[in-house]
């Protein structure tokens, strides 16, 4: 959720950076969106198209890379992918915050980011 407001922030950030450097246009924006954020990628792409109209980002490509969830278990030291469970009633596979090895609660190391990795400018 909140794709429109996050994408607004992305566009604002890129505009600020581009203006700071006196760029004439933006060709590409590279994002990393973690799989543990609840952002809908299609909505981000759609919001982006709408928000860049009439700005120097118009015509730019939005390239999104996904990052998988990575967790750490304080009890046994496990570091690695998150454990998914298939709910027997709804049959939805959803992430859990329990350790793959010892079932203790884990902390999230990766997968909750929405990062502007890099941008390509035309000067």
């Amino acid at each position, binding site marked *: 959720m909140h794709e429109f407001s996050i994408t607004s922030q992305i566009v604002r950030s890129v505009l600020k*950076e581009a203006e700071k450097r006196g*760029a004439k246009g933006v060709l590409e924006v590279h994002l990393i969106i973690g799989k543990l954020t*609840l952002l809908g990628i299609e909505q981000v792409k759609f919001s982006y198209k709408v928000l860049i109209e009439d700005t120097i980002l118009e015509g730019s490509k939005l390239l999104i890379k996904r990052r998988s969830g990575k967790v750490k278990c304080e009890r046994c030291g496990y570091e690695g992918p998150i454990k998914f469970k298939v709910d027997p*009633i709804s049959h939805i596979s959803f992430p859990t915050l329990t350790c793959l090895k010892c079932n203790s609660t884990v902390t999230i190391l990766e997968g909750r980011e929405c*990062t*502007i990795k890099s941008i390509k*400018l035309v000067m």
Partner: protein
Amino acid sequence: MSRVIRAEEGEIFNIELAEDLLKANEVLAMKNKNLLSKHGIKAIDVMGSVGTGKTSLIGQIVYKLKENYRIAVIAGDLTTTIDADIIAKYGAEVIQINTGKECHLDANLIKKALKMIDLNKIDLLFIENVGNLICPAEFPLGSDKRIVIISLTEGPYMVVKHPFIFMKTDVVVINKMDLVDVLGVDVNKLEGDVNRVNPKANVVKVSCRNGMGIMNVIKALEL
């Protein structure tokens, strides 16, 4: 003479930014948590859909604990001071945040609210989040514990339909148990749904209306 590199017209520059937009709230939440910790204040984030009993639950707990703790409450809603007024009657200092159109509280709003409380004069803080089971899951506020409250009047599917908020909670309260016979909702199944999503969460059955189970919530929160 210093040498300056300037871009030529039409030249393409690749800029590495590494700017994480979601990190801002988490950093602020951590700052809130540290500030509260420094003052020895335990903070509880209370979430749940509209009408499930967040205000009633906080009110009941405040009433039972006001001799043991100096309590403040931050109440969040889009509009009105209705919740703040209700809780104030139970005996706590209340700050109301009106979020306008925003569907959740965030760490920044809590930071502002904390400035309006004399932190030396309280040791327990409840934050009543906006009535919404989806968005608050994504926005930590800096609390020590999180409660999600669901009500039997919502039917049997609230947990399976909103797994993410239950994954990140410490206590799940099932409210309106006084209506269990009338509504015919399978409470054991609801408890089972919570256990599957989050085996660590403590499930407590209550009726905020008649006070049943409130002491168990207090115990589950380690208060």
